[in-house]
């Protein structure tokens, strides 16, 4: 399912003294099956864009095409439910949305709202708890008795249980420990690869964007200022600093090494693993010569 934003503008609290423009003429195309990262400084409009992706917010100007549904300011849409089922959003700190008596019921809440039969919803819930590495006994516990990390996983399961075609993630790992962070990000990546889930990741973390995304869009003051593959984006350090962003750690490290040895590596290394690989090859070559 493609999502296309055309000249999208949005203002909060329009026509009040609190009016605040958050987006200015944003164009963005998210291709079906791609992994799109949206990066930007706090207040750059990332989260506002994200809420447009399943029509929680309607643009004050411009239009958005989500699959074959067009969302516009002055258009009443009847198919919004359908859109919301196909585009699952994991909000920042999703554990705040838990409410039901048991974890099982909470995970089943989303799919059942969209008319999935109870048996099927239950099957999905059990499958997802396993997938997310939760012990089976949590299913009958109250979600409020779990640890923070477990609550986060339950909330994520609640979104995944709707079987969305597009998964939108807003800083899904904020506040988790490094290990949990990696586990969850890897899980999203596997889902993206195996199920062909179109994934949109809104994040501060250059490292995550570099490691997982195929396409990156950079937001600054409500505008989409830079777009491209990670290789293209991280080739322009000057532009990034202009938007108060940094290179990912591995690229920064690569630059330092390149300075030290006075040689350039053939590619920009987006992860520590690929950097190690490149360096090993370089050393091997030097030895052979």
């Amino acid at each position, binding site marked *: 399912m493609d999502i296309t934003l055309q000249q999208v503008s949005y203002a909060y609290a329009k026509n009040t003294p609190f009016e605040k423009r958050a987006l200015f003429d944003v164009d963005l195309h998210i291709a079906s099956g791609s992994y799109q990262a949206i990066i930007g400084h706090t207040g750059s409009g990332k989260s506002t864009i994200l809420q447009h992706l399943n029509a929680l917010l309607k643009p004050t100007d411009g239009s958005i095409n989500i699959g074959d549904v067009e969302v516009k300011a002055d258009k009443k849409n009847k198919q919004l439910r359908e859109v919301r089922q196909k585009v699952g959003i994991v909000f920042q700190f999703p554990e*705040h949305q838990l*409410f039901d008596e048991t974890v099982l019921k909470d995970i089943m809440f989303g799919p059942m709202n*969209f008319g999935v039969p109870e048996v099927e919803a239950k099957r999905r819930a059990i499958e997802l708890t396993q997938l997310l590495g939760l012990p089976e006994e949590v299913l009958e516990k109250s979600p409020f008795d779990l640890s923070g990390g477990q609550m986060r996983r339950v909330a994520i399961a609640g979104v995944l249980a709707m079987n969305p075609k597009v998964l939108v993630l807003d800083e899904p790992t904020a506040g988790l420990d490094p290990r949990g962070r990696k586990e969850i990000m890897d899980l999203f990546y596997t889902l993206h690869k195996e199920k062909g889930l179109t994934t949109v990741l809104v994040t501060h973390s250059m490292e995550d964007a570099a490691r997982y995304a195929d396409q990156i869009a950079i937001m600054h003051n409500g505008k989409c200022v830079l777009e491209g593959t990670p290789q293209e984006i991280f080739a322009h350090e000057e532009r990034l600093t202009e938007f108060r962003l940094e290179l990912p750690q591995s690229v920064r490290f690569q630059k330092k090494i390149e300075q030290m040895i006075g040689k350039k590596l053939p590619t920009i290394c987006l992860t520590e693993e690929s950097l190690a690989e490149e360096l090993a090859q370089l050393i091997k070559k030097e030895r052979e010569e």
Partner: protein
Amino acid sequence: MLEKMIFGRYIPGDSFIHRLDARAKLIFVFLFIAIVFIANNWITYGVLVVFTFLIIRMSKIRLYFLINGLKPVVILIIFTFLLHLIFTREGDVIYHWKFITIYEEGLRQGIFISIRFFVLVILTSILTLTTTPISITDALETLLNPLKKWKLPVHELALMMSISLRFIPTLMDETDKIMKAQMARGSDMTTGSLKERMNAIVPLLIPLFVSAFKRAEDLATAMEVRGYKGGEGRTRYRKLEWELRDTITMFSLVVLAGVLVFLRQ
């Protein structure tokens, strides 16, 4: 949706009304509530409306914004208007249709009550729109101070009030966030049948309560950590100062009351 609500919100500004002492504004509103009841005919109600519009002008709040924010109250006003219209049985009959009979007095009463409501709601809204919550509580605390003699926990009351005012916007934001998260999970409060909407309230209220309690606990800890131990011997950073313009404002109220008494029947 919630962003249009104006109850308890403060709009920073520098109008005459903004600069008034919060105590003056509080006393003003309280006395005004009493004075409104002096009016009893078209002229006196007209005077009240003119007076109110004068204050709106002086507060430099856009009328459109004010009216828009008061929409929920307008429904209440219309409701009371209709009640008066239908159930008052005095004066000449001006309209008759099946079992509904409208009397002249009913229409008059309905309009008067609506004006009264309208004027009161506008003035109290202007009080909160032009005064920071902190100064309102400060003012309340100083005004209630004499009651301490009778063991009324004035400081605690003021603190409770300022905390609740402080958390209105926070909880609003939170409601908005949770509502969106549940909407994304297919539970929508804004569409569907009445039953569906009622069902959508539980997934909103429970997380809201949980987080409100958590916030309360965090706040209590934070206050204790910073050595809060009640009002005894506490000094103030902000001082309220009564100035000439506050006296003038009070005087305008006396004039208003005089005019109303003179013009009433």
